[in-house]
């Protein structure tokens, strides 16, 4: 994987985006041996402008088989990316998510995909789940603990 690949990974922040990319890869792979003259649907046309296609355009393949093999490998690599599950009480903006992704990369030296789940009942803070471990830093928990000590 080269610099282009790193650029591609930067674009993928959340699990939803990863799934979207994997679907696009699968679709491109399925179109390799088909007639290019076949009209693509609106969704496919929209994807033509995606960063995935830009990334693939910069690559040179000797034949369709090589392209297919590359796409399969790319798909497998993306599926193996580690995932951090974040349960938060608010609808996070894209900038905040990008910030978190960048911060995580800096801290761990690896690309981590964010699986963001909005749960208003946690009130504030965050509940994290990473590599099978769960860390509850929610305000709900704090309140609960406080109430237990009071009551």
């Amino acid at each position, binding site marked *: 994987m080269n610099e282009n690949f790193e650029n591609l990974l930067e674009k993928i922040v959340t699990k939803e985006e990863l799934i979207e990319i994997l679907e696009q890869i699968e679709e491109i792979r399925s179109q390799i041996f088909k007639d290019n003259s076949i009209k693509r649907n609106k969704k496919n046309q929209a994807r033509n402008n995606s960063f995935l296609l830009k990334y693939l355009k910069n690559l040179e393949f000797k034949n369709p088989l090589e392209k297919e093999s590359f796409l399969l490998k790319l798909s497998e690599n993306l599926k193996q990316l580690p995932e951090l599950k*974040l349960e*938060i009480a608010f609808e996070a903006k894209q900038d*905040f998510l990008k910030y978190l992704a960048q911060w995580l990369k800096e*801290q761990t030296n*690896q690309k981590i995909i964010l699986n963001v789940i909005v749960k208003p009942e946690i*009130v*504030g803070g965050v509940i*994290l789940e990473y590599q099978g471990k769960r860390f509850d830093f929610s*305000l709900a928990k*704090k309140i609960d603990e406080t109430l237990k000590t009071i009551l």
Partner: protein
Amino acid sequence: MIQEISIWFLLGLLILNIFALLLFSSSKNKKINENLKNEGALILKISENFKINLENLIEEEIKKNIAEIKKEIENIQKKSSDFQNELLNQAKKEIEEKIKQTKNDLKIEKEQIQKAVQNLKNEIEQLQKESFLAKKQFLIETKAKMEKLDSVLAKEFSSIKEISLKIQEHLLNQINTQINIIMTGVEQEVFRLRQETQEKIKQKLEKADQEIQNYRDRKIQEINQKIYQLLGKIAKKILGKSINLALHEELVKEILTKSKEEIFKDYE
């Protein structure tokens, strides 16, 4: 009767003759007078004396005639009586003859009837005898037949009783078999109905459970919503301010920074 008619007829004729004679004489006189007048002749009137004499003469003549007529009537009556007697005698004879003949015929008829009655009596006697014998014979035969019939009937009755028992037994078996079949069918039907009912109840219960679950989820969601609102208020009181988006983000960043070692210590 004929005689009377004849007499009255003759009397009538006589009166008519006299009347006609008077008329004729009167009209003749008138005619003669007229003729004479016409001829210019002299007409003489009849005197009262002559008229009385003439009337007397006519009266005598009439009396004579009446006497003659009476005589004639008597003769006729006499003749009529004789003829009547003769006719009566003849009729009497004929009647007597007829009576005699009839008596004779009746006698013959009576004899024949008596003979026939006798024959009938004989025949009746004969018939009575035969009837008595036949009745006696019939009774004997009937008695024998009755005895025979009794014997046959006893046998038949025994046989019928036996057959009846067999039929009864067969019918009972058939009824039992049918009852068993029906009962099996009924049991199957009851089982099927029970299954159907259970299935329906199960479906209704599932539906009710689903509705309860939906209701519970809805209510839990409502309660959760209230809890979030309450928790928000509590958080606000604890933190001294409400949590906005920036504060949320800040909290997450702070938590990640503080706990990065704890979270990522195995993967650094």
